[in-house]
């Protein structure tokens, strides 16, 4: 009990070391992977192009890829992608909640995207794997089975 006040003071002053970390994990890219029905590994698909409704941007023109990374709009709550394959065209509409977060005066302000859902799609088999957009090599947000 004699050293109790000293211990409490040390605990109190440990707050001085409690500076915020500028660890930004947010991204505005949704990762969409492709799989063949009945397989667990990613399937390389040939994409003629992917377009984003509301913009004139074209992504993945004539590419063979197992997955695509596509942006979402920070000032909206939904986005529609149009996938042009050599033999067919499909659409995917995703909904999300943009969450405005201030990490700190030194770190800045960022938008985190959560509650990712499929609003509508012409694909037959689509599921959400991770409903928050975060940075990471193995992050997959949406899985499409072809």
């Amino acid at each position: 009990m004699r050293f109790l006040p000293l211990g409490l003071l040390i605990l109190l002053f440990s707050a001085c070391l409690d500076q915020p970390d500028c660890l930004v994990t947010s991204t505005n890219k949704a990762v969409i992977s492709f799989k063949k029905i009945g397989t667990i590994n990613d399937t390389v698909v040939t994409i003629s192009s992917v377009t984003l409704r509301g913009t004139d941007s074209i992504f993945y023109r004539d590419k063979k890829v197992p997955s695509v990374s596509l942006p979402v709009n920070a000032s909206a709550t939904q986005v529609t992608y149009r996938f042009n394959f050599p033999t067919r065209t499909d659409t995917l509409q995703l909904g999300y909640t943009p969450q405005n977060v201030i990490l700190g005066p030194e770190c800045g302000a960022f938008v985190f995207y959560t509650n990712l859902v499929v609003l509508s799609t012409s694909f037959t088999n689509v599921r959400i794997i991770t409903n928050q957009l975060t940075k990471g090599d193995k992050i997959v947000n949406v899985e499409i089975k072809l």
Partner: protein
Amino acid sequence: MWRLSCSLALCCCIIAGAFGQQPPPTPPPLDESDTTEAAYREKKPDSLRQKFTIRSFRFGVDLLSVYRDAKVPTFKGWEVNGDIDLGKFYLSGDVGNWGRTYDVAGGGTYENNGSYWRAGLDLNLLKKDPDRNMFFLGFRYGRATFREASTFSVSDPYFGDIQKTLENEEVTAGWGELVTGLRVKIWKGFWMGYTGRMKFSPKVTGDTDLKTYDIPGYGLFSRSIYWGFNYQVFWRIPFKREKPKKPLVPLKQ
């Protein structure tokens, strides 16, 4: 999480130490026929067993808030404190106002402003001090109502630059605190003291547009534990006239 566990364990040890003392042995029942002085001395009330009577009211101001208001450009605020002496326990309360203004990296701004209060109970561990000086442990429940606003921009190569102007009109927050500190009588009714606070478990409602960054009276919402410190001056008003202390008289042999 590790810090929370250590802090809670430490506080539990302190409280257990304070309450874990053995009670004094119960004196044997008095024999009415025994008229010796020793027997009459046993009849005196136990000074440690104090009644819950209101003895005094003490009010004060937090000097650190006054200093921060004057010297820290990002802070505007004040805090007043008070407690009611119930003997071993003290009913304590704080009321304050808190405003922050930050420039955020990337050309943004953040500001909040609101009021808060805390209420709780303190246990005085200095049971026998004749001046009723305090070394106390206690707990508080804190609540804040505030507004916050921020502007910042998001650069996007596909959707263009987006300027965000966000405001949470009415946010409420609640949290708990474990507190410890000292109150020392300086002169007559003038007292000084400090309070250290371990604030924990903040909960916020109403942060619809912008995730709450700073809670008045608490601090950064992103921290599940936040530390606070007050250095206070008080004036004590006794509710009943306090009897002068009698000098101790040695017992006759």
